[in-house]
């Protein structure tokens, strides 16, 4: 589904990603863990097409297409979804209007008719239940005045509405209490299908108690330095990141 080869990227001229290689197949859940500043979010931004990040080298193939040539909206329409670490508030744009525009633009891309108002509202209602989202929230402006937890829940709600092929969850667990974490994780698990995949970026292991990854990658200094199964996450939780740093920084020839 996704193949990243030797990806280098920089922000404001500073190189952040220094040769990322990652392959994700349909049906898999990958977790990326790593210390602050390792470049985890930058990878998420590159995948979603954030113009703040400049790709200097490498390639990304998504379902046979060159992702790097696509606009952010086309990546979304092709099935990439980023759950933002810091969801953006958009005062004056109602959730309903925002979601209806998004859903219908996605449908247009697939040569489908726009959803009728009734069908759209039915879909909203169904997906809201999935993340136990308050009705009041969808009648407000996008993320405006939402608490941290509500914003994250709203991200998963949008993901449920758009049914992406590859969901990237960037620190979706940060700022969540344990109940909200359970609800968010539950939403993600319910959306899991054999034909889609998820990339979970997280700082802590606790989200991975709920969303069980098939692979755990450790990100350090702009690269994946170690890959393992879910037990790697437990090991990191126990030992911290220092041993990884030491391992990486020890010159190979010694």
């Amino acid at each position, binding site marked *: 589904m996704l193949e990243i080869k030797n990806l280098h990227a920089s922000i404001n001229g500073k190189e952040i990603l220094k040769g990322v290689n990652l392959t994700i197949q349909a049906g898999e859940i990958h977790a990326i863990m790593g210390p602050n500043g390792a470049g985890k979010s930058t990878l998420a931004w590159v995948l979603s097409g*954030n113009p703040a990040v400049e790709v200097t080298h490498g390639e990304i193939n998504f379902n046979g297409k060159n992702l790097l040539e696509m606009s952010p*909206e086309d990546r*979304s329409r092709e099935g990439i979804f980023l759950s*933002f670490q810091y969801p953006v508030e*958009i005062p004056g744009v109602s959730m309903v209007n925002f979601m209806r525009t998004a859903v219908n633009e996605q449908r247009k891309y697939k040569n489908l008719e726009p959803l009728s108002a009734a069908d759209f509202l039915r879909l909203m209602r169904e997906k809201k239940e999935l993340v136990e989202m308050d009705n009041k929230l969808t009648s407000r*402006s996008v993320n405006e005045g939402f608490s941290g937890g509500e914003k994250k829940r709203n991200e998963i709600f949008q993901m449920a509405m758009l049914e992406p092929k590859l969901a990237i969850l960037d620190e979706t667990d940060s700022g969540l209490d344990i109940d909200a974490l359970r609800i968010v994780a539950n939403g993600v698990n319910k959306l899991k299908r054999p034909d889609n995949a998820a990339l979970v970026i997280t700082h802590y292991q606790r989200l991975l108690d709920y969303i069980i990854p098939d692979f755990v990658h450790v990100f350090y200094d702009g690269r994946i330095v170690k890959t393992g199964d879910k037990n790697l996450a437990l090991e990191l939780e126990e030992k911290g990141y220092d041993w990884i740093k030491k391992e990486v920084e020890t010159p190979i020839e010694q």
Partner: protein
Amino acid sequence: MEQQYIDFYKEYHTLIKQHSAALMNNFRDAAFEKFERLGFPTSKLENYKYTDMSAPLSIEYGLNINRLQFQINPYDVFKCDVPAIHSYLFFVLNDTFYPVNSTAKQHLPEGVIIESLRTAAETYPQLVEKYLGKLSNEKDDGWIAFNETFAQDGFFMYIPKNVQLSKPVQLINIMRSDVDFMANSHNLIILEEGAKAQLLVCDHTMDHVHFFANRLTEVFAGKNSVYEHYKLENTNVLNTNVSNLLIHQEDSSNVLTNVISLHNGVTRNNIEMLIDGENCESLLCGMVIGDKNQDVDNFTEIVHKKPNSQSRELFKYVLDDTSKGAFAGKIQVAKNAQKTSSFQTNKNILLSKTAKMRTKPQLEIYADDVKCSHGATIGQLDEAAKFYMQSRGISESEARLLLMFAFTADVMDNIRINALKDRMKLLVEKRLRGELSRCEGCMIC
């Protein structure tokens, strides 16, 4: 530029007076002398720094001082195709109030007078005399003096004590001429104690000649009255509009003014809200969508003369191409106007590098127990919000549109007539999409 009008007045003042009302003529010569002294305001004056009228004033306009009637019936020409807004509908053609037909007049509550100012001044001289010119005569403004020199007629609305209109009154100013034309009209609106009215003024042009409209409107909001004044300008690039809206508020009155410019040429709106009572509420809003060479200058003044009143001001501009916008927000709180609260916001988005915005908040506070604030910003569309929307599959152009629309939403929300709000939102959306045509008829009704 002034000289031709000065000579014109000297030659034709008898004729001008003959086709107007005695009450309007009472201050005409004094106004003329004032105009002779002041001339047209130029950009050399601080308050007119950003309004350059030299180009529109270099055009020779015709004036209809003989009050010739036109041959069209606006009630036939302007059919309402969106019946959502039920209104009492009236027209001013150029500067002449169109005789009210029976259907428009019917259903007006007893005692309400909606008439041409000239007729009202002749029919109800005591009532009109009490108010006419009481705000404008005091002003030392060249445009007002010019208006008072040449205006022969206008729109008159009187709402008696405790009468509340259940439907809005809609006044459509139509400019129609085969040659370049100037219209001067003086409007007078009176709400007695406890009265309630909503007025929607639409400016339209029918022909592709140069028009110059100079409108003076005086509003008197009595004790406990509620008045809403909406102005929509949807004209074209050949149109120049100078408007002076002077509002006087008495105790516990509530006045909302919302001035929306969608298409225009050069527009200068002077709006003054004089809060001359306690416990008043005043809300002054406006927005501008400009592109091409559009030029809009809103010069506003809120004067708190008495204690315990609240005012709020909100203006938003979205400017593209080489359009120009200016906003001045003067708030004056007199020494005894304690416990005043007054908040002003002006936010602007520039969509191109060549669009220009000038904003000037100006607070003059002489009282010491007040809450006042102001804020002005000029910026671009929020890139983070745009990317967030794109990341959900919304195209860049649609995301821009949603953001621009959202930016104007709080001005739209200050339209208290729901049907008008919905209609206005639609017009703004069409305008932002570039689909709204310039003045092919009445867009609201």
